[in-house]
């Protein structure tokens, strides 16, 4: 009989592990069984680590038995396949890294290991985190557990789907323009993109270095807070990582939203939005009012320019970040007579269409004669977008918006036209440009039973505020979570 331990939240599982009511091995076994049962359909994992996971679970059980058990000890997690994991291949969902086995761990992987977390596998994603649907994976798309004809969102679609489908209790994603928040919204789980610099990026395969940020997926705000605490904090190997002390995020979850001033940006409720999304967010805002929060009308006037600025800045950085994939030191090599042809054929074969498109756009934006008009212009508009938020936060403590204009779309619906795909990130991208923390929490369902996500945005390093607000909303019980169809 399936024990369904995999449906527990991290907080619940941790309590039962501590009581020795359940073992880490049983919990891990349940997750691995679930993966074995459904992942052929879902395709949330690129690599499943059965043996390693069970060994980690056994080690965790020993620690639990000895009473030395940090918060995540024995908790099965999914790891986006963008994190370097020593001895376990890290593909970034690309042919070019299909057989790459890093000799080192990313800093956050090291921290999770130290905490006794269990890694059930490496999750699927858009190649090099470039995409909003996980359709750009060299290993095939991840499907949405709520409707297998729809996308899971992206780029961290595998992690979002895995958590939603109870293949693991939590997961790691990365967010460069919405890559945690959008799939969290599409799959009906919680996802946090912390303040830029809050979490180390060491060992996280870079897409756009000034925008990339590490963050967790979880089934509840509390669980996300527990994971985030382990991830966050200064790292001597990441020069951009903040030295600020890390608060106990879970301790900030008082359930109290009284007195919070919630900014509602008029630019985020636009025509063309799926009406059910707007209705859900409006209803969620009402819930906040009944919890004692107040709503403030704000304006973020440069919102409409964010996608354009993002696609110049992100692709420019990406064009340099992806130059290292040359077939010389690691990764795919396609043979050739001279080294220039070697690069060209290796990269032609190794990268997918979307990655090539972004490398091309970024190379062009930085090239002689175009730098000022494109790359530099993007950086300047980035300043305007940051300023918008700074001004807005003079009037409010946090900002609430939809995560995406629609719920999960159909597979193939947006692949023909890249720009259409890019536009699905319209509500999340500004947050990355400004380096702010943002969180997606499920607040409703549309007529097709597809989850709708609400985005909470705060000033830099205000993770405690948005977590507290999200947790208060969640606890108020306005949403009756529906289990995914799969």
């Amino acid at each position, binding site marked *: 009989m399936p024990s369904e331990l995999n449906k527990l939240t991290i907080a619940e599982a941790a309590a039962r592990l501590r009581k020795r009511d359940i073992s880490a091995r049983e919990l891990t076994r349940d997750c691995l069984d679930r993966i074995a049962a459904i992942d052929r359909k879902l395709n949330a994992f690129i690599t499943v680590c059965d043996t390693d996971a069970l060994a980690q679970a056994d080690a965790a059980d020993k620690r639990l038995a000895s009473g030395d058990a940090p918060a995540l000890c024995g908790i099965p997690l999914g790891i986006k396949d963008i994190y370097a994991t020593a001895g376990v291949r890290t593909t970034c969902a690309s042919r070019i890294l299909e057989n*790459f086995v890093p000799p080192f761990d990313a800093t956050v992987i090291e921290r999770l290991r130290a905490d006794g977390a269990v890694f059930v596998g490496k999750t699927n994603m858009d190649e090099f985190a470039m995409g909003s649907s996980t359709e750009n994976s060299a290993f095939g798309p991840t499907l949405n557990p709520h409707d297998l004809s729809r996308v899971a969102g992206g780029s961290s679609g595998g992690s979002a789907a895995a958590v939603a489908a109870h293949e693991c209790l939590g997961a790691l994603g990365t967010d460069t323009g919405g890559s945690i928040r959008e799939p969290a919204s599409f799959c009906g789980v919680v996802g946090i993109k912390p303040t830029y610099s809050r979490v180390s990026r060491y060992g996280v395969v870079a897409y756009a270095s000034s925008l990339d940020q590490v963050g967790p997926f979880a089934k509840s705000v509390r669980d996300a807070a527990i994971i985030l605490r382990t991830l966050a904090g200064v790292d001597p190997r990441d020069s951009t990582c903040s030295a600020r002390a890390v608060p106990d995020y879970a301790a900030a979850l008082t359930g109290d939203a009284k007195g919070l001033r919630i900014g509602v940006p008029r630019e985020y409720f636009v025509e063309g939005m799926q009406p059910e999304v707007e209705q859900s967010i409006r209803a969620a805002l009402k819930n906040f009012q009944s919890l004692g929060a107040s709503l403030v009308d704000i304006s973020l006037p440069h919102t409409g320019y964010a996608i354009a600025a993002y696609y110049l800045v992100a692709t420019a*950085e990406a064009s*340099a970040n992806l130059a*290292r994939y040359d077939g010389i*030191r690691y990764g795919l090599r396609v043979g050739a007579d001279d080294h220039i042809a070697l690069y060209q054929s290796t990269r032609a074969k190794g990268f997918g269409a979307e990655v090539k498109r972004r490398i091309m756009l970024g190379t062009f934006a*930085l090239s002689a004669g175009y730098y000022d008009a494109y790359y530099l212009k993007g950086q300047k508009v980035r300043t305007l977008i940051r300023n918008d938020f700074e001004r807005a936060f003079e009037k409010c403590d946090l900002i609430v918006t939809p995560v995406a204009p629609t719920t999960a779309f159909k597979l193939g619906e947006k692949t023909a036209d890249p720009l259409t795909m890019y536009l699905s990130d319209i509500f999340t991208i500004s947050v990355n440009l400004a380096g702010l923390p943002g969180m997606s929490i499920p607040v409703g369902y549309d007529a097709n039973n597809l989850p709708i996500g609400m985005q909470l945005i705060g000033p830099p390093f205000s993770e405690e505020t948005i977590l507290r607000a999200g947790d208060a909303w969640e606890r108020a019980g306005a949403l009756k979570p529906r289990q995914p169809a799969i």
Partner: protein
Amino acid sequence: MNRDAYEAVIGLEVHTHLLTKSKLFCGCSTTFGAGPNENVCPVCMGMPGVLPVLNRRAVELAIRMGLAAHCEITAYSIFDRKSYFYPDLPKGYQISQYETPICKGGYIDLPASGNGEARRIHLTRIHIEEDAGKNIHAENSSLVDFNRSGVPLVEIVSEPDLRSADEAGAYLRQLRAILRYVEASDGKMEEGSFRCDCNVSVRKRGATEYGVKTEIKNLNSFRFVEDAIEYEIGRQIELIESGGKVPQETHLWDPARKETRPMRSKEYANDYRYFPEPDLPPLVVTPAMVENVRATMPELPAARRDRYVKELGLTDYEAGVLIADREVADYFEATLPGLKNRKSAANWVMTEVLRVVHDSGKPIGEAVPPPAEVGMLLHMIEEQKVSLNAAKTAFPAMVKSGKGAAAVIAELGLAQVSDEGAIAAAIDKVLAAEPDKLAEYRAGRDKLYGFFVGAVMKAMGGKANPKMINDLLRAKLAG
């Protein structure tokens, strides 16, 4: 060809390794000569996900160099990515500094020399960057070693102030001396830690516009730089004189054929797409940091030269020879304790010591005995325990045997005789043997004095105290 109608305009870009223990952005060793790909890690191999962390020492050494060259130190400088593909460049970009080098302006003074008067060569900038690995060309393939990848470099860019190959050579020697003085670099060209690119153009004398320049890449000896510039000046003048135009090109120097040739590959016809390195926040250099570097800065060659002239009484020329190389100057100073005559010590180092160093081709520390032993030898001369000539005989023996001055003098029986009785007896003997010459001398043929000194010294086996010979001989000759 009328070469004199033209003037060369030369600017140099020198790349030199900074003397750090570890690389610019990771904790790998910078030691030269390790086995292939031994001094590498995920960071300097450009593995996915790695990030750079700046080496403080490299920044301090770059500031040192900037202070030594009178540069302005930039308070807020940004690192940039310089993108190009080459097998020895692991990330596909080099972390460098583009718009905000850590040091701006400044100059290097070239002292007057036999070939010309003193000149001031202005610098454009000094910036920090990482080195690439090394491609080794084998029969049918190339092999890549990343040990050098990420070793810290400064690039020192001069204004186009140089006017001849000789001047370029003098500038490089001076620059290298300064780098070694401030212990920023070992300046070892043979290990690739000091490399030079030259920008050379020519123009009609009196013209104010610059001609089209040729860039000559990666010259790794002073001789190559001088030869390549000399060749390039001639080539460009010939080209212009024959009605041609100098195309803007990058050339390589072929030392075997003694000519430059355009690079065949199009690698360098590139667009480097510089943009700010997002993985490194801007480098903030506080005034306190600059002052700290200044306070711990070793003495510069110009200051040492002044000190030698003013405090030790050396001539400009002597001081110039000694300070040219930091190790030689240090050696010289280490011979001084206990010596009265600094000038003779200077002469000894400039002649005896440098001759051996030069002939051996080894660094001074390995070529000659420790400076204290040379000091001891010089001290024995001052104390008249050994004659200057005997000391000159003793020194090569010291070099050869590795034994100390006192031991060699004793072994070879070179100690000077200051026994008044023995010298007087020898003089008496010489005078008795040469009655005719004695008579001539006394009749006024003063020139014979030298003959008597020589004869006495010979009789004493060359070991007699010459001053004593003088005193006694004069007395006896006077009758």
